[in-house]
């Protein structure tokens, strides 16, 4: 083949690298894995915590610098939206209500999109099942809001967009998706907005 016929080669190579890098960056911005379990507004990726993790989930986890729970440690559920599918917004109050997930212990925490805890006036960054006020039948209601609220209050801080993470430690669920059938998690209902 005459060398003149290979003139486009450097351009094609550069375009291939650019396209490959762009596709990778796009895929890393998505969810961590393909095997999400959806329960209302909550999502979980059970394979993040075991050896069946897929290459995309492994890459997302490494780039985020996360230390996801191992399957034997527990399970994390992430909510970025409320019951209606609207993105969580700290300018609004949210009622998080339900009964305790089937776990030995659980925590509820609010983060910003980068996974940092949210600065707030109370300097409290989450709630635990052991410290929660609940009714005799185990039902509870948490108010997530910027300003202090009576009862179970989860401070949200100033930035508008936030993410909730519910961690069920030593959960009575297995990594099999079928085990999640019938599992109910707390509802997230938007209240008044400022």
């Amino acid at each position, binding site marked *: 083949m005459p060398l003149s016929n290979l003139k*486009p080669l450097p351009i*094609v*190579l550069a*375009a*291939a*690298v650019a*396209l*490959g*890098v762009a*596709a*990778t960056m796009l*895929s*890393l911005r998505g969810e961590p894995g393909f095997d999400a379990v959806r329960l209302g507004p909550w999502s979980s990726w059970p394979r*993040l*915590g*075991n*050896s069946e*993790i897929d*290459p*995309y989930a*492994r*890459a997302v*986890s*490494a*780039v*985020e*610098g*996360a*230390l*996801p*729970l*191992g*399957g*034997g*440690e*527990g399970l*994390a559920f992430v909510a970025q939206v409320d019951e209606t599918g609207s993105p969580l917004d700290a300018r609004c109050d949210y009622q998080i209500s339900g009964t305790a997930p089937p776990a*030995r*212990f659980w*925590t509820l*925490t609010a*983060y910003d999109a*980068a*996974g*940092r*805890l*949210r*600065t707030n006036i109370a300097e*409290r*960054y*989450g709630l*635990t099942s*052991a*410290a929660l006020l609940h009714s005799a039948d185990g039902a509870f209601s948490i108010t997530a809001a910027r300003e202090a609220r009576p009862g179970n209050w989860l401070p949200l*801080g100033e930035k508008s967009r936030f993410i909730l*993470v519910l*961690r069920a*430690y*030593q959960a009575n669920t297995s990594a099999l998706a079928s085990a999640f059938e019938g599992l109910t998690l707390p509802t997230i209902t938007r209240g008044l907005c400022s």
Partner: protein
Amino acid sequence: MSSREILLRKSFPGRVFALIPWVLGLLFGAVAVHLILILTLPALAPGSAYRQFARPLPLGEKRVLARAEPSMSRPSFSDPFAAVALCRFDLRQGPLRLRASADGDRPLSVSVRLADGTVIYSASDRQTPGGRFNIVIVTQAQADAQDAARERAEDDSGEAAKSAEDELRLISPGKTGFAVVRTLALRESDYEKAAARLDAVACSLETTP
């Protein structure tokens, strides 16, 4: 129709046909670059938990991570109620033994991860005898060497050589990685007590027989 138009008409399909290998090459190259990046990022990402916290750690030493707070970006999505300690292993230098134990009410768990973040083992204190962990992480070759050494000891003494009853031998598919011990504060005010439990976590480099 001019002779120039005739020439253009005749050469157009030929030129499109000539582009096809380049377009296919572009797509193939882009897919290859994407797959290489996805497969190598877990080991190379500078912000991964292994590279940030475990890789700088001397073998046989543990590191207790600072409590999660808003100014900390790594590890991302940290639970502010979890106190976490790490130990690095490099099985080319020898097996790693990890000991940890729970103190009753506060949950404690252990996970073992490869350098690329893959969790190869995880369990809670409720799944181990007395809430104690005694894990030795080895390669298959090191496990075989240990078994051979025990058999030799049995032959010499005439008695069955025993490993510790609560010992869990974990054969790692990778040479490098880290173990994570996580203990939980039940309440906001409980964190210091939970973190104190990590004082009893011990990591040590073992010798191969």
